């Protein structure tokens, strides 16, 4: 019988991500590998780019099929929570749990594979969202090429989600 709550088990496992999220990290955060000199690199941490990618994927319904995860030595949902974004991490878990079919809660979550499956749902949305953003930037018109170079674009995206 597990003693730990399901959420704390989930919180402590690392999230995996693929190449698209990695590129987005380089594009919109000030962390290592700042590739795009024109971009504003508005965020400070990997987790911010991951979060942005996840919610973009979720709202645009862009969920990548489970890819090979190139990046496994990463961060956990707990890291996101400790960064002051508890509610953001909670919503990610809720989305993942909504899509996870529970047969026997106790048995299911006593296995590492189930926790990974659950976290993969989050990673798939993040990868899908990041890929979507990168595709936009490859578009031909000027606005596309500079998409997310300006802080306005982030606010506009958020505002549009509420309209």
């Amino acid at each position, binding site marked *: *019988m*597990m*003693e730990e*709550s*399901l*959420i704390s088990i989930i919180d402590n496992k690392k999230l995996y991500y693929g190449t698209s999220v990695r590129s987005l990290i380089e594009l919109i955060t000030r962390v290592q590998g700042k590739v795009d000199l024109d971009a504003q690199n*508005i*965020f400070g941490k990997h987790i*911010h780019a991951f*979060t*942005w990618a996840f*919610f973009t994927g*979720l*709202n645009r319904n862009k969920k990548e099929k489970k890819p090979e995860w190139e990046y496994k030595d990463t961060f956990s949902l707990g890291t996101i929570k400790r*960064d*002051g*974004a*508890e*509610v*953001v991490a*909670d*919503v990610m*878990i*809720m*989305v993942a*749990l*909504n899509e996870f079919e*529970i047969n026997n*809660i*106790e048995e299911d979550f006593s296995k590492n594979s189930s926790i990974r499956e659950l976290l993969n749902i989050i990673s798939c949305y993040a990868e899908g969202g990041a890929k979507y953003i990168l595709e936009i930037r490859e578009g031909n018109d000027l606005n596309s090429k500079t998409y997310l170079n300006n*802080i*306005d674009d*982030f*606010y506009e995206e*958020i*505002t549009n*989600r*509420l309209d």
Partner: protein
Amino acid sequence: MKLNKLKLKNYSCFLDAVELNFGKGLNIVNAGNGYGKSKFLDSINWVISNQIFHGDVWKNADELDLYPLWYTNPDNKQYYEEKEVITEVTLEFTAPDIDNNIEKNTVWYFTKKRYHKREGTKLNRNRDELTIKYINNETGEQVILGKHREFDVIETLFPKALRKFMWFQGEAFKEISLSHDNKEFNKVLDTISHYPIYGKMVKRASKAIIKKENALTRLRREQRGLSNEQSENLYEKDRLLIKIPELENKLIPDLQSDIDDHENKIADYEDFLKNSVEYVKIDREIKQKESDIRHINQSIEEYEISKVNMLIKRWAIAGSKSHIESFQEKIDYIQNELNKIDNTKIPLHIPGPEMVQDMIDDMKCHICDREIPDEDHESYHALLKRLEVFKEGKKERWLRKNFDIFKRMKSNALSTHSEIEESIKNHKKKIQEKIRKRNKLNSEKDVFQDKLKGLSTSSNTTTGENYDLYFSKKQEKEKNLRNLKLRLGGLKNNLSKYKNKLKELNEEIRSFQTDNNDINLGEESLKYFEVLVDSLKKLEQDAKENLENEITHKSNSLFNIYYDNPGIKIKIKNGNVKLFDKSTDDEIDIRNLNKSQKEMIKFSVINSLLKLSNEKLGNSLPLIADAPTSSSEWTNTKYFTENVGDNFDQVILFSKDYIEQCEDPNVKTQLINLCLKQGGSWHWTQKVDKNGNSVGRKFDNPKSDSESKTVITESILK
């Protein structure tokens, strides 16, 4: 006179043969900037006078290249390989048959060719050839005019003084000053009036008087018994007769011309500085607006950056409400699991799960110390059942723990979602307010920029950097002018003194009693000469005044036609153009008028000269104008266009001012109808590349002259 046809081939931006046919009345040729508008007029000047207005001065056309640059571009293979190129312009006029019967009109053909030979990439001018032909009205045959007659024919049909006002209206403005004596203007007055004949007669008679005076002085000197005083008087008179003409004919006019130049230059500087002051003022306004816009942009950015943490740590969940609500299913699932658990409570006195596990392991009850016989025994089953109850309790606690966490997560997320909805909306509102402010500043900036553009395209202007330079130049000229005027005053004073002295001397000399009949008769005849000169001078003055009154009258009536409700009266006096307020009669300082008013006043005066030339010379010259309304608002351009045709037998306007307005098809139709109704024509030019595709203005692409040509895309003739 009417220009029927202008045909250009290999002239400047006109590559192959381009032909414009004109009717009487109003003709409009629409051409944007850089589309060759002025080249049409240059081509006319080339044929008639071999002079082209280039870079602000009239230049001998021999010094200028006239062939299309298209021929110098290796990409235009067929043209680039041409070894010989001929530039050709033909003008077809209906004009008086001055070779035979001036009363009748005939058709004149003026064809000028320039032969070029290729040397490498360049084409070199070989020779120019002018041919003038006309139709003999009696035989109907074409007659080639003899070379010796060409100069006379051109001068008679297109008098030199009038030509520049007729062909090149834009530059004619530079030739006529509104505020100072103007030589060019006076030359036109001389050409179209008869008073110069009086002037010539005065000159001739004055010369005769001097000659007679000299002869008389000689005779007097030859007389015997002259006193010292009488001899000195005669010597002094000789001296004055040299000095006075020198002052009158050379020193004073030269100095006056120097003064005119200074005044013109100062007026130019004043215009320049006035525009510069305006320019600097507007430029400052624009810079202020730009700084305000930068400030707002910065404040938007700073505000947004200050909210970045909020954006990624809370606002990111915007739009996830339905997912949060769906999470209720998982909460319900745990609730369901909890419901399934037997809620039998384990009494407190019952040993804990570890002790029960020990008892099962030891097969012994550690409370009563009795052995459990075997695994089928009732007590063993009782212990197993008890252990199960303990396990269920643990599961329930775990489930309940997760249940509580799930519920809290959902509730937190939902309330956060509502909060962020509100704060995102507020954020949007704040940003929108700032953006609105920025847009307002941007449109204010646009207005100033348009003003600035108007200033820089409408006149010579400069940025603040040159302001000081021009200001000091103006001061220097003003200082020189003061000195020149003092000198002029001195010279005029001397002249007047010398004239008085001469008069006194003459009286004294004439008072010498003499028996010499030649001297006495000579003295008598001189008096008649003097009366004649005075009368001629009076006639000259009257004729000049009459002509100036006529020009005044005509200029005012044209100005009323060209400019809607002008409120200004034009008066020509002593070769100067003066302006007065219509209602108060106060003289108006020309510098206080706007550019459009100034240009229309000049236009009115110049055109009144053309109009009068028709009456005085019996030769109705067409008005061919290059961009006459470029400084005017559309209302005035329209007013001018509607009325200008009524005053000339033929008006040809090369202009860009109708292009934008013609985007409205109704305006275009009205303009075309206006031209056709008067018997005129309507043309449209376009610049195209070698594939016939429209290209931008040459200012946008410096190479475009070698890659593009001007073509006529629309020609409507009644």
